[in-house]
């Protein structure tokens, strides 16, 4: 196991940023830590890096204890690499010098390694060979990002930490860099911990996602598990943007509050949600109809998206977000009925293998 986190807690004065969380990270895994701002994800990353010390609990990296209540091993003595949100390129060093820096200073870099050869390799992986002599001010956003990546992977650290590395790039570049980060993961087989607030980034790249909220881990699982089978209300609404429908749970079906004649089948709703008498329905799991089947409501907003249409439907007790196919056009103010789509089937996730590429 590359990293083991045990009952990790971090307080800043009275504020408890991390509430005794535990997590095991396997060798070569790509872990995304997903959550809204202030959920503790950056704190967790900074504790892993060694920029902060834990208030309680412990951190092990590659079998060595690097942090506990009493001592914190500083970042330069940990076998890690890190990509910063702001890139943190040094304006007075060129691309090659950025990659050389950790090769010279990193304590875990192989001392017998041919530094020039490794620089060439890294430049090759990051596709920066032709920019080797450029200064940071002469690079585009994507190129800066690659330099930051190259610097982090150069010494081949056991653990690669990424702090929202794509949030400073524009939408199109983000998509491209996702592919490149996946490729680097495949090539280097490094263990990656990737912090993000963007659920689509996490779903697209990670082997496992750790969803965090208010200093706690809400759920850990593969992207499919997190998306299709959220354990908590927070995961359902943050990751899947699900509508949390109120009603009553019976043995194996759900009765929505406003339409007791309906019986929705259990597609794998978690015990916690059942206890709270909630059925999480993602916008694409809902059908809109003009016949009197379902729960009556009025359309309060229509957003045309090209490949689909997003509606907001106000029913008597809550508002629903519904995504429909493009051919299903309704007007603003129109009375409709909302209903769970019928053709859903339960996915068997238990047998699903972890796929990383």
């Amino acid at each position, binding site marked *: 196991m590359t990293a083991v986190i045990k009952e990790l807690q971090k307080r800043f004065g009275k504020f408890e940023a991390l509430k005794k969380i535990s997590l095991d990270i396997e060798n070569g895994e790509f872990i995304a830590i997903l959550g809204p701002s202030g959920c503790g994800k*950056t704190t967790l990353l900074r504790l892993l890096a*060694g920029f902060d010390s834990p208030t309680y609990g412990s951190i092990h990296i590659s079998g060595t204890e690097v942090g506990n209540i009493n001592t914190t091993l*500083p970042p*330069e003595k940990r076998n890690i690499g890190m990509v*910063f949100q702001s890139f943190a*390129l040094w304006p007075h060093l060129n691309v090659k010098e950025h990659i050389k*820096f*950790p090769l010279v200073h*990193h304590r875990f870099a192989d001392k017998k390694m041919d530094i020039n050869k490794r620089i060439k390799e890294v430049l090759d992986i990051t596709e920066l060979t032709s920019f080797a002599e450029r200064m940071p*001010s002469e690079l585009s956003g994507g190129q800066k990002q690659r330099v930051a990546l190259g610097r982090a992977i150069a010494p081949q650290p056991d653990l690669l930490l990424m702090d929202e590395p794509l949030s400073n790039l524009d939408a199109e570049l983000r998509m491209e860099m996702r592919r490149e980060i996946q490729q680097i993961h495949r090539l280097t087989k490094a263990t990656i911990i990737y912090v993000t607030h963007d659920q689509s980034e996490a779903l697209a790249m990670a082997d496992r996602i750790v969803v965090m909220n208010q200093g706690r881990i809400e759920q850990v699982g593969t992207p499919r598990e997190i998306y299709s089978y959220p354990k908590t209300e927070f995961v359902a609404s943050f990751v899947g943007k699900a509508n949390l429908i109120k009603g009553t749970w019976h043995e194996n079906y759900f009765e929505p509050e406003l339409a007791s004649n309906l019986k929705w089948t259990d597609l794998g709703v978690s015990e916690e949600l059942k206890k709270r008498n909630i059925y999480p329905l993602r916008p694409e799991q809902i059908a809109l109809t003009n016949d009197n089947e379902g729960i009556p409501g009025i359309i309060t907003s229509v957003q045309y998206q090209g490949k689909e249409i997003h509606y907001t439907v106000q029913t008597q007790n809550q508002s629903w977000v519904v995504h429909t196919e493009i051919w299903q056009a309704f007007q603003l103010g129109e009375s409709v009925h909302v209903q769970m789509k019928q053709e859903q089937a339960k996915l068997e996730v238990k047998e699903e293998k972890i796929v990383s590429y």
Partner: protein
Amino acid sequence: MKANIPTDREIVPNQVLSSLFTNKRIWTWIGIALIFLFFLLPIYRLVALSFQQNDSFSLANYTSVLQDATTWTVIQNTIVIVIGSTAISVSLGISLAWLVAYTDLRAKKLMQIFIILPFVIPSYISTLAWTQFLGANGLFQQLVALFPFPVPAINLYSLVGIIFVLGLSHYPLVYLLSVSVLRKIPRELEQASRVSGASRWTTFRKVTIPLALPGIASGGFLAFLANLDNFGIPAFLGIPANISVLSTYIYQQVVGFGPTAFATAATLSVILGVIALLGTFIQWLLLRKSKRIETTIEDKQPRYFLGKKKLFIEIALWCFFLLTSIVPLVSMGMTSLLSAYGVDFTLENISLKNYQFVLDTSPKAKQAMVNSVKLALITTVIGILVGTAFAYYRIRKPNHLNKWAEISIGLPYALPGTVMGLSMIFAWMEPIPGWNPGIYGSVIILFIAYLTRFLILQVRGSITAVMQVDVSMEEAAQVSGSNGWSKWRKILIPLLLPGVLSGAFLVFLTSLTELTVSSLLWSSNSETIGVVIFGYEQAGYSTYSTAFSSLIVGLIILGFIVLYILEYFWNRKGLKQA
């Protein structure tokens, strides 16, 4: 889309950096002790002395000083001079700032150099230049002699003269603060007001002025303080005319060495110091208020187009710059070349013998140059090390303790020079009562005084430099395996250097030409450049003082040229922030 996620970075004390400060407690206590000893104790001793008579607490000094009619004349002079000169500084500074910030004038960069020139040249040298320009045989009289009607000679050795030279010397302060505030007001705010239906005048009144006022007023207070604090100008112009202001009056008390001289001087100093600190406090409040718009960047594109009036305004401005910045210096240069004071400036009267005297014959001038350069160099080097270390600690680990430390370090600079000089005498004549190690009376006291007074300049320069280097730059170095010396050598020093050096240049220049503090603390063999020029002028050797001053002006200009060249090469290396 740019995600603006607040990270915990700002509020998290960076624990790892503390590895630099092992045995933190000991260092903290040493730091507190040093700051107390160098920055606070002298001021305490000064205040204590003013409340002391026959070794016991008493208000007698205050009653006798305030009952003396001379004191009230001095205070009245001070008020008139400070108000008058501040009015000149503020009106000149704001007008120029508005023109440079908002209109489409050409050659603004060159203008800026001329605007800053009176500020860079020590005020006593400008005064000398003005007296040569307006003097009986000066360029001004030769110019007006060409007029068909008689023009009365202008007597600079008067209240009006002092007000005039002070006002012209300190308007750059108002200009510098106002111009940056004006540029930082987003033009969209004015446009929004116009679109909402307000006229150009209403917009100026209701949007521009309220936003610019704190910054402009803060510049005004800075000029007020500079005018209150200045010693060179009232000393050169006021002492011969028997006009005293608080700063020169305190000086005269100290050098007069009467039986109660020190007690009276201390009392007057406390009065002057309280006025100055009050002014500093108001200025600080105003500056804090004006920082509300500081998130925006400076917008240097013109907002008002002058049209046909442009050429006329430009000619007027350049005449003003020539007349106030260049011509007086040229007059001074001309005097310095005369073989004897008072003769006409003709070819046969030109000689370099004054320069020969200053550079060769007179041992005093040479000694003073060596002293000043030594003092300035040592102050600068120690300033760079101590000031940058403190600035780094202050920014990376901000806490109440180092905030108070910064205020304490700034105190000797906020106090008028005469007050500060006097407090140095009290603190170091007998560091432990009854024990006089001879610090006062040697060059060491000047060195201590310079370092105490000017350290804040380096601290501020270095603070700006440290703030421009994001913490993540350091963290990236740490993750790459480097902390301690290699991080400083390879990452921090190269990034901090330009900012630190510009602060150091200011410290060097200010120390090199310092007069106020030195005039109180010098002793034979420890004269400085300022003291020697002041001495020549008081003894009536105007040709020597002008020659020495011209030399210093030449050196300052040379220094700036070197600085510009260095900056040019530095920028060419592509060191702009990525």
